C-alpha cells in the first residue's frame, strides 16, 4: 500500500466577546428564551439598516494581533446572498475580498510523548480572518421547524488557515491554540458547547512526496475538538482507501455523523451555492489607523506560549506547571506578582497551580468573577511561602490554612497567630512527646527496630497529631531516631 499524507485546512468560527450584536445594539447572551434578544434590525424588518459595532472591530483587530496578522488599513463589507430560514435578511453581512486581518500564524503545541513532557511547537499559516454576523438557530421537529433569532447578528469571526495542517492531531492542536489565545486575551469564551466556536474542515490526501494538493472534501459545523479529530481521521482513511483502489475523490461537502463516526456526502461542487457577493451599500468601508492598532496592541497580554517559554527558561518550572499557569492570563499575573515578592517560583507555582486552582474549581462562581476580585492576594501566597522557608510553619500547615486564606483574604501570619500554628522547635517538649508516642505504639516500634524503615512514619504521624502539626518535622525525625536507637 502506498503511503498517503493528509493536507488539512480549517475555517474556525469564533463568537466575539461582545455584549451587543454586530450591526445593532440588541443584547446578546447565551441561553435566553427564544426570540427575546431581537429588534427590528435583527429581524430584518423593512427599512432597517446596519450600524457597525466598534467593539467587534476592536476585538477582531486584537485577534489578528494575537496571531501576528497584517491588519488591513481599509476593510469593507459584502453581502453573501443565500436563502435559509435561520437568516433574517437572506443575506449575511460578511467580508469577501477585503478582510480585516490578512496572513498571520497560529503557534500550535502538539501532545508530548508523556503528559509531563512538552510536545513539538509549530507555526501554522493563516490565510485571513474576517468578521461577519452569525445566523439564528433552527430546531427541527417531525412536522415543522422553529427558528430562534437570539443568536442572529452576533459578531462572529472566521479564522481561515492555509492548507498547512498534516494530521488530525495537528488540527486538534490548532483549535486548542486558537481557544487558548482567544480566552487568554479575553476576546472570546470559545465555549464549543454553546456554539461560541465551530469549525469547518477541508481535508485532502496525496501520495507522500507529492507537491500537488489532492481533491478536498469539506466537513461543516464540527462542534467539538474531538469531532474535528475523529472526522478528519475518518476522512483521511476514507480518501486513502478510495485512492488505493484506484477510485476518485469528488469535491463535495460532507456531513460528520458524530454518533456513528462516519462522514456522508451532502452536496457536490455543482450544487454549491453561488453567493452572489457584492459590496454592502448600507455600510461604509472601515479605515483602521496605525494609532488605533497600536493602542489595541498595548492592551493585549503576552502570548501564552511566549509566557510558557519564559517560565520554563527563567523560572525553571516543570512543563506541566508552566503549562497550567499559562492557561489563563490572570493566573500567570498572580503567579508573577507573588514571585516578585518572594523569589521561590517553584514553591509559589505549586501553590498557585495546585491549591489555588483547586479552590477555584471548588467554587465555580468565583472563577467566573475573575481572580482579581477574589479576597486572596498574591502577597499572601508569597508570605505563606516565606513562612515555610523561614521555618515558622510546616508545609503541611501551609496547605491546611490555604483554603482559609482563599475564603477570607486573611494573611497567613494572621491565621497562624490566631490559631497558634507556629512551629515548635522546643527540643525538650518535642522529645517528651516522641517518648510518649514510642511508649504508646509498641507495634511500629518493633517493626522499625526489625528493619522496616517505613514504620517510623506512623510514629512521626503520631507526634505531628499530638502537637497539632506544630512540631518541626525534621526535628521529630531526628529525635525519634535517637530515642529508637
Amino acid at each position, binding site marked *: 500500500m502506498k503511503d498517503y499524507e493528509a493536507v488539512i485546512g480549517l475555517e474556525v468560527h469564533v463568537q466575539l466577546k461582545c455584549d451587543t450584536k454586530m450591526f445593532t445594539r440588541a443584547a446578546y447572551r447565551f441561553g435566553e428564551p427564544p426570540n427575546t434578544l431581537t429588534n*427590528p434590525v435583527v*429581524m*430584518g*424588518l*423593512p*427599512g*432597517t*439598516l*446596519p*450600524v*457597525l459595532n466598534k467593539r467587534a472591530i476592536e476585538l477582531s483587530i486584537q485577534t489578528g494581533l494575537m496571531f501576528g496578522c497584517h491588519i488591513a488599513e481599509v476593510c469593507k463589507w459584502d*453581502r453573501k*446572498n443565500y*436563502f435559509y*430560514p435561520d437568516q*433574517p*435578511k*437572506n*443575506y449575511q453581512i460578511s467580508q469577501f475580498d477585503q478582510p480585516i486581518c490578512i496572513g498571520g500564524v497560529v503557534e500550535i503545541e502538539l501532545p508530548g510523548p508523556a503528559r509531563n513532557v512538552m510536545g513539538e511547537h509549530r507555526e501554522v499559516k493563516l490565510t485571513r480572518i474576517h468578521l461577519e454576523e452569525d445566523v439564528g438557530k433552527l430546531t427541527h421537529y417531525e412536522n415543522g*421547524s422553529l*427558528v430562534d433569532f437570539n443568536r442572529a447578528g452576533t459578531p462572529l469571526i472566521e479564522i481561515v488557515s492555509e492548507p498547512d495542517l498534516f494530521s488530525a492531531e495537528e488540527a486538534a492542536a490548532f483549535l486548542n491554540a486558537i481557544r487558548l489565545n482567544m480566552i487568554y486575551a479575553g476576546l472570546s469564551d470559545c465555549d464549543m458547547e454553546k456554539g461560541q466556536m465551530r469549525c469547518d474542515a477541508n481535508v485532502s490526501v496525496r501520495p507522500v512526496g507529492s507537491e500537488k494538493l489532492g481533491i478536498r472534501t469539506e466537513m461543516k459545523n464540527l462542534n467539538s475538538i474531538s469531532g474535528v479529530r475523529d472526522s478528519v481521521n475518518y476522512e483521511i482513511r476514507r480518501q486513502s482507501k478510495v485512492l488505493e483502489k484506484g477510485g476518485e475523490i469528488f469535491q463535495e461537502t460532507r456531513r460528520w455523523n458524530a454518533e456513528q463516526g462516519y462522514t456522508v456526502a451532502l452536496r457536490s461542487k455543482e450544487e454549491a451555492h*453561488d453567493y*452572489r*457577493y*457584492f459590496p454592502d*451599500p*448600507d*455600510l*461604509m468601508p472601515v479605515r483602521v489607523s496605525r494609532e488605533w492598532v497600536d493602542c489595541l496592541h498595548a492592551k493585549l497580554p503576552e502570548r501564552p506560549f511566549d509566557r510558557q517559554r519564559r517560565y520554563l527558561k527563567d523560572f525553571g518550572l516543570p512543563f506541566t506547571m508552566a503549562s497550567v499557569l499559562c492557561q489563563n492570563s490572570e493566573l500567570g499575573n498572580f503567579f508573577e506578582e507573588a514571585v516578585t515578592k518572594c523569589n521561590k517560583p517553584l514553591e509559589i507555582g505549586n501553590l498557585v497551580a495546585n491549591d489555588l486552582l483547586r479552590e477555584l474549581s471548588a467554587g465555580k462562581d468565583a472563577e467566573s468573577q475573575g481572580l482579581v476580585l477574589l479576597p486572596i492576594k498574591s502577597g499572601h501566597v508569597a508570605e505563606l511561602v516565606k513562612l515555610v522557608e523561614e521555618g515558622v510553619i510546616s508545609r503541611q500547615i501551609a496547605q491546611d490554612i490555604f483554603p482559609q486564606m482563599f475564603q477570607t483574604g486573611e494573611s497567613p501570619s494572621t491565621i497562624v497567630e490566631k490559631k497558634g500554628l507556629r512551629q515548635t522547635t522546643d527540643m525538650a517538649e518535642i522529645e517528651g512527646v516522641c517518648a510518649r508516642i514510642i511508649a504508646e505504639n509498641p507495634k511500629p516500634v518493633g517493626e522499625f527496630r526489625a528493619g522496616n524503615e517505613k514504620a517510623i512514619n506512623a510514629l512521626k504521624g503520631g507526634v505531628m497529631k499530638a502537637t497539632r502539626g506544630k512540631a518541626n518535622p525534621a526535628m521529630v525525625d531526628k529525635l525519634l531516631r535517637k530515642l529508637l536507637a
Partner: protein
Amino acid sequence: MSDLYYQSAAELARLLEKGEISARQLMQSVIDRTHSVEEKIHAFLRFDPDEALVEAEKSDQRRAAGKSLGSLDGIPIGLKDLICVSGQGLTCGSRILENYVSPYDATCAARLKERGAILWGRLNMDEFAMGSSTENSAFQTTCNPWNTECIPGGSSGGSTAAVAAGETIAALGSDTGGSIRQPASLCGVVGLKPSYGLVSRYGLAAFASSLDQIGPITRTVEDSALILQAIAGHDARDSTSFKAHIPDYQAALKAPPRRWKLGLPREYFAEGLDPEIRQAVEKAVDFYKNEGCEIVEISLPHTELALPVYYILAPAEASSNLARYDGVRYTHRSERAEDHVDLYFKSRGEGFGQEVKRRIILGAYVLSSGYYDAYYLRAQKIRTLIRNDFMDAFKKVDALITPVSPTAAFKIGERLDDPLSMYLSDIYTLSINLAGLPAISVPCGFTSKKLPVGVQIIGQPFKEAEMLSIANLYDSTHRFGMEHPEL
C-alpha cells in the same frame, strides 16, 4: 376661508400662527377634499380621518398653550407607503406586505412628528418603487389629476397626485432613479431629491440602497425648503447618512438673487425629447437669462450609459434587499408550500408582481459568478465616470438645467407591455441618483393638452440651499404648482 386644502404649507403656517385658522379646520378641509375627489384619483392606499382630526386638535391645543412645535405644527403631510410609521401598515405597494404593520418610525417620520406635522394617510406607489407610472401597484392605479385617463408618473405617483389634487398639503416620496421628480413633473408639483446621505434612509423600505433618497413633494419651492429643513440631517442609525452642516434653507430663499451660472447639458436636449417639453424648458431657461444668469452649454459625455448602468446596479441591490420578503417571518406565506424551498418559491411567486420579479431576476443574474465582473463591476466603474462628468461640469457652472421627463403624462396602460419604453421615462433623472446629487423638479407650464411640464435643476452635492435658491427664483415668480386641475 375657502380652499384651505390648496394653500401652500408656508401660507397655512402663517395663517395658523396668526390664529386665523385652526389645524382642525385645515385638516377637515383636506379630509373633505379627499372624500370628494379620491374616487377619481385613487392616490391613497389608506387614511384615517378620525385619527388625523385627533392629531389636529392636539396641535391646536399646543398652539393655544403657546407650545407650538414650529411651522409644520398642524400641517397634513402624506407618506408614500414605503416609509415606516409605528403601528401603521406598510405595503410598499405589494401583496407580499399586505398585512404587515411596522413596529417603529422611520427617522424622517419621527422628525415630522416631533415638529407637529400630521401624518396623513399612506400613498400609492409602484410596487417597491419599481416603475414610472404607479401602474405597478398591486392594489390600484392612481390617476393624474390633470387628466384622469393618464398616469401620474411614478413611482411616487400617489404622493404627487394627492398634492396636485389637494388631498394633502405636502407628501414625502422616495427617489431611486427619478421616482419623486418624474411624477412631480407629470402632476405639476415640486419634487426634490436630496443629495445621497442628506436624509436618513432608516425606515425607508429599501429598493436600491446606494441610490434611494427620501424627499418632499410640495406645491412650491418654499414648501420644499420647509420640509427638507425638518427631515435633513445626520442619523446614527443610517451608516450612509452624511455628517453635513444643515443650513437654514428658508433663509437661503430670502437671500438677494445672484447671477447664477447655469449649464445646459446638450445630451439632455437631444433626440427623444418631446418638442412641447423642450419649448417649456427653454422658456424657463430664457427666464433665467433675463434675470441676468449666464447660460452655458456643457456636455456630460457618459449620459447614454446611465440607463444601462442603472438597470444593472439598481436591480442588483434590489435582488438582495428584497430577499428578506420570504414568507418565513412577517410577509405573505403561501398556503400551498410543500417544504421550505417551496415556501420561498410560492410565497414570493404569489406575493411579487411582474416588474419586481423581472428586476430580481435581472439583479441576481448580473451578480452571479462569472458575470459579476462583466456587469456589476463594470457598471460601478461607469458610475464613477458619470459622477466625474457632473463634477467636471460643476467646475464651470453652479447648477444644471434640464427637462425632467422626455414626455408629459401618458395614457394609463400605454406602456405597460413595453418595459423599455417605460424605463426611458427616467432617462433625464437617473444619472443624478447614480452621481448622488441633489435635484429638484419645478413646474414650468403645460402642454397644449393642458398636461403639466417640469424643469429640473441639478445642484452640487450638499448644496441644496443654492439649488433651492435657484429654483425659487423661477418658482416664486411663476407658481405653476399653485394652479389647480379641474376635478
